[in-house]
């Protein structure tokens, strides 16, 4: 369990999940989550995130591989794991005719060491909705109720399946603050999301899933480090790409043109930008629609999806052109 002084709260090894029809949703993934960190499974719809989380929650038996949560198998040793975990499913799962307070009271009766229901409802800002029937809640309010119930037992490990889907910007921000505060209090959080911003803001480490596999994993900084920064601008009238200084000399890793628009990829943003701007100043031209951005998770994410679809199309890996 111990490695480098960090306890691995979740250990996943060669995990596979196959549905009844033979569809392989999870195709041999491995990762670990340390105590007190937020780990995000990022991916498009159908990447296998929920299928994975359900195995970690112990709702289904893996087709292969191994899951350990707090040192136990969550499927076969349910009684040992459940009192220490909190789960927020992708979709509610509340009787529509119960009120918020009745729902929370029911769940509190099923959770060891439950906090007072009113306390967790206040935590997610639902205290004024206690007497409202679940069916009258908005989608966002239902997500918050789900989060409140997941927190009822002060879980050591929290599974959040798309916690902010359906929330407005304010609700999403509040959820992020709450989840961060829980992490700071020592809770281990595993969440799934298809919002890049959410993973980038919240996760200590993340794994990008695609097609049932983990395409890349690491801290947000590590995952984006491999990606190039981007510069785009419009060529001034009468100028051509050949009129620019030699791109290789500016550290440009690749470029493409789209009409008069030029896009550059570089791993040395400052060097490329300086060279480009100095050339523009000396030539006395204005670079319209100039845009420069550091590598982001979005680049990594789109790159993975693009590579994967190209692989499917041609049966081979496409290569970025090397500097």
């Amino acid at each position, binding site marked *: 369990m111990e490695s480098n002084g960090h306890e691995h709260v979740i250990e996943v090894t060669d995990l596979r999940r196959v549905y009844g029809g033979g569809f392989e949703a999870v195709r041999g993934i491995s990762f670990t989550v340390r105590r007190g960190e937020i780990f995000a499974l990022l991916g498009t719809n159908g990447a296998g995130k929920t299928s994975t989380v359900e195995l970690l929650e112990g709702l289904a038996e893996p087709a292969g591989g191994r899951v350990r949560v707090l040192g136990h198998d969550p499927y076969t040793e349910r009684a040992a794991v459940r009192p220490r975990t909190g789960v927020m499913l992708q979709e509610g799962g509340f009787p529509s005719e119960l009120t918020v307070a009745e729902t929370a009271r029911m769940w509190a009766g099923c959770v060891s060491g439950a906090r007072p229901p009113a306390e967790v409802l206040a935590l997610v800002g639902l205290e004024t909705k206690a007497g409202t029937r679940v069916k009258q809640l908005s989608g966002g309010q239902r997500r918050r109720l789900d989060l409140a119930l997941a927190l009822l037992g002060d879980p050591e490990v929290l599974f959040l399946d798309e916690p902010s889907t359906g929330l407005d910007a304010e609700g999403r921000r509040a959820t992020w603050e709450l989840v961060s*505060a829980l992490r700071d209090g020592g809770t281990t959080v595993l969440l799934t999301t298809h919002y890049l911003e959410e993973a980038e803001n919240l996760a200590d480490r993340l794994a990008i899933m695609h097609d049932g596999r983990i395409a890349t994993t690491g801290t947000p900084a590590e995952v984006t480090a491999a990606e190039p920064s981007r510069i785009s601008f419009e060529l001034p009238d009468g100028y051509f790409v050949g009129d620019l200084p030699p791109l290789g000399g500016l550290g440009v890793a690749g470029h493409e043109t789209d009409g008069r628009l030029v896009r550059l990829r570089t791993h040395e943003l400052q060097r490329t930008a300086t060279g480009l701007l100095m050339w523009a100043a000396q030539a006395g031209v204005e670079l319209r629609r100039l845009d420069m951005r550091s590598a982001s998770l979005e680049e990594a994410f789109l790159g993975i999806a693009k590579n994967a679809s190209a692989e499917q199309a041609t049966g081979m890996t496409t290569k970025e052109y090397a500097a």
Partner: protein
Amino acid sequence: MSATQTTPRPATAMTTPLSRMTALARAELTLLGRTKGALVAALFVPLVMPVSVRSAAEEMDLAGAGLSPGTLVLPAAFGFSLLFAVYSVLVGVFVVRREELVLKRLRTGELRDAEILGGSALPAVLTGLAQCLLLTAGCVALLDLSAPSAPHLIVLGLLLGLVMCAALAAATASFTKTGESAQATPMPLLMVSMIGSGMFLPLELMPDRVASVCELLPLTPVVTLVRGGWTGNLSGYEALGALATAMAWILIGVFAVRRWFRWEPRR
């Protein structure tokens, strides 16, 4: 945000199977009170149907079979209560909770599978029990029923009936896809029981061959035990046979649930 501020937990805060099932049953009771269709089926039908049995009794040679209007109507009334207030209501409860993903959510927590089904079933089972007690009082008052000869057989029959109806409801829910089809899937057992389990026509008045088949129906042993408990006409051998049949149906129900019950809708 005070997410990290935690209320100290009392040492006794661990849940037990009983405390978990009670919490779930309490919520289900609230829901039962808010579901009008189920309420009508559960409360109204079992109290009205016995009247039609009473009128059917006029045309039968009851005395020849050692029966009276009271010993015909009361077991039938128990049967209606079990079929409508327990069995049909619970098929709907299990199917609707599955559709609402409530069962899936409950399975993420500390409740064990059997506790989820048991806790959800408890309000309907208690409704059925209360109804049978009420019906007994009604029959004693209105139909000149004398004291039962073997009360223990009545209690045994009723308890077996309650457990069996809950188990068969979960089994029926295993083969019911939507809340709408839950209106139809309980029908076969309802019809077969009303016709063949001695509710309208006592087995004593059936041709022997037909009676020996009808003895094997799920609700027949319940009706037989309740009726026999009242008349005292049941031999020990017959009582054991009824007990065995009832146990067999409970086991079949439990087996079917373990094998086929689905906790979430098909996607």
